[in-house]
């Protein structure tokens, strides 16, 4: 297993994990979001657009990290909001709208993958290797550029990536992840540990 001695001198793992702050846009209408939800549920498209603008970045982030492709993530993001428009009249307000939307986004991404598997489209094999072979190795031009966490996540095997994103990025518990992915809680924990070890190896290369 790689150790700190293998990294470039003077550069810590923490440095490679440094994140760039970003500005999150928010709805500019001035109306409370609950009002937008109620009006959108009644068919008000302008209110729904306000909800879209308030939540699109988070939904898109989830889609990108779960599916590993920015192009596909934009398609999925649109699918999420179209589905949200259809289901909004059923939203009871038992949870926050953001929680409801987020859970819907996870379902859309997972169902899209199931559909792709059924249709025989090019799909990622959950069990292919351990993902490390896909990571840039020593001696390659990228050696001078430290792989950042975002790029390393995208290179994870799909099963490990999904669990890592849902647990460490999005904050779901293993019991919830197990239910969403149709696996056991123990399986979810194992995938998470595997993902963290792979990321550590990638970030230390």
């Amino acid at each position, binding site marked *: 297993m790689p150790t700190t001695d293998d990294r470039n001198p003077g550069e810590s793992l923490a440095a490679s994990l440094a994140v760039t702050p970003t500005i999150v846009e928010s709805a500019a209408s001035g109306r409370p979001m609950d009002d937008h939800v109620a009006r959108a549920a009644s068919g008000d498209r302008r209110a729904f657009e306000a909800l879209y603008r308030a939540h699109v970045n988070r939904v898109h982030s989830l889609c990108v990290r779960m599916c590993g492709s920015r192009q596909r993530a934009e398609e999925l993001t649109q699918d999420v909001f*179209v589905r949200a428009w259809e289901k909004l009249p059923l939203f009871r307000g038992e949870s926050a709208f953001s929680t409801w939307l987020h859970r819907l986004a996870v379902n859309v991404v997972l169902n899209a993958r199931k559909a792709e598997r059924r249709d025989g489209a090019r799909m990622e094999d959950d069990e292919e290797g351990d993902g490390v072979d896909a990571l840039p190795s020593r001696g390659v031009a990228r050696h001078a550029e430290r792989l950042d966490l975002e790029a390393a996540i995208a290179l994870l095997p799909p099963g490990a990536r999904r669990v890592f994103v849902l647990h460490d990025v999005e904050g779901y518990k293993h019991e919830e992840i197990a239910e969403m992915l149709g696996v056991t809680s123990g399986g979810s924990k194992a995938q998470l540990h595997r993902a963290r070890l792979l990321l550590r190896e990638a970030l230390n290369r």
Partner: protein
Amino acid sequence: MTMPITCDVFEARLADWLEDALSADERAALEAHEAACAACGTLAGELREIRAAAAALPELPPSRDLWSGIAERIEPAVVPLDAARTMERRTAHRARRWGLAAAAAALVIASSGIGYGVAMRRAESRYQAALAERGSAGSAAPAVSAAPSRDSM
């Protein structure tokens, strides 16, 4: 006193330790090993850093505004007014044509039915007449077809 553990045991229990899923005794054993073993200490520290960095990842905005694509899909189909009027006229014209065709067909059927009925009654009359003649003449009645002749139709 905490029993010392090996690096293999430490790595095997590390995932549960990071999930706070260990007993107090197990936790103490791993903490002791972490403090005593540089390699395992580094491993645990780096996994914690990854977990923390993941939780702090920023949101990723899409490369473009996706709203127009969404709006198209949630908008009900709208037919332009001129096209709507054209469709209405075509529908009405089609209905009139079908109505006329239906009326003509009904007329043909009705006349056929009337013609057939008249022919049947005529055939019956001839048959009755033939029977009457036979009865009065005491000879075999001529063979009369009950089916209407082409001429009677």
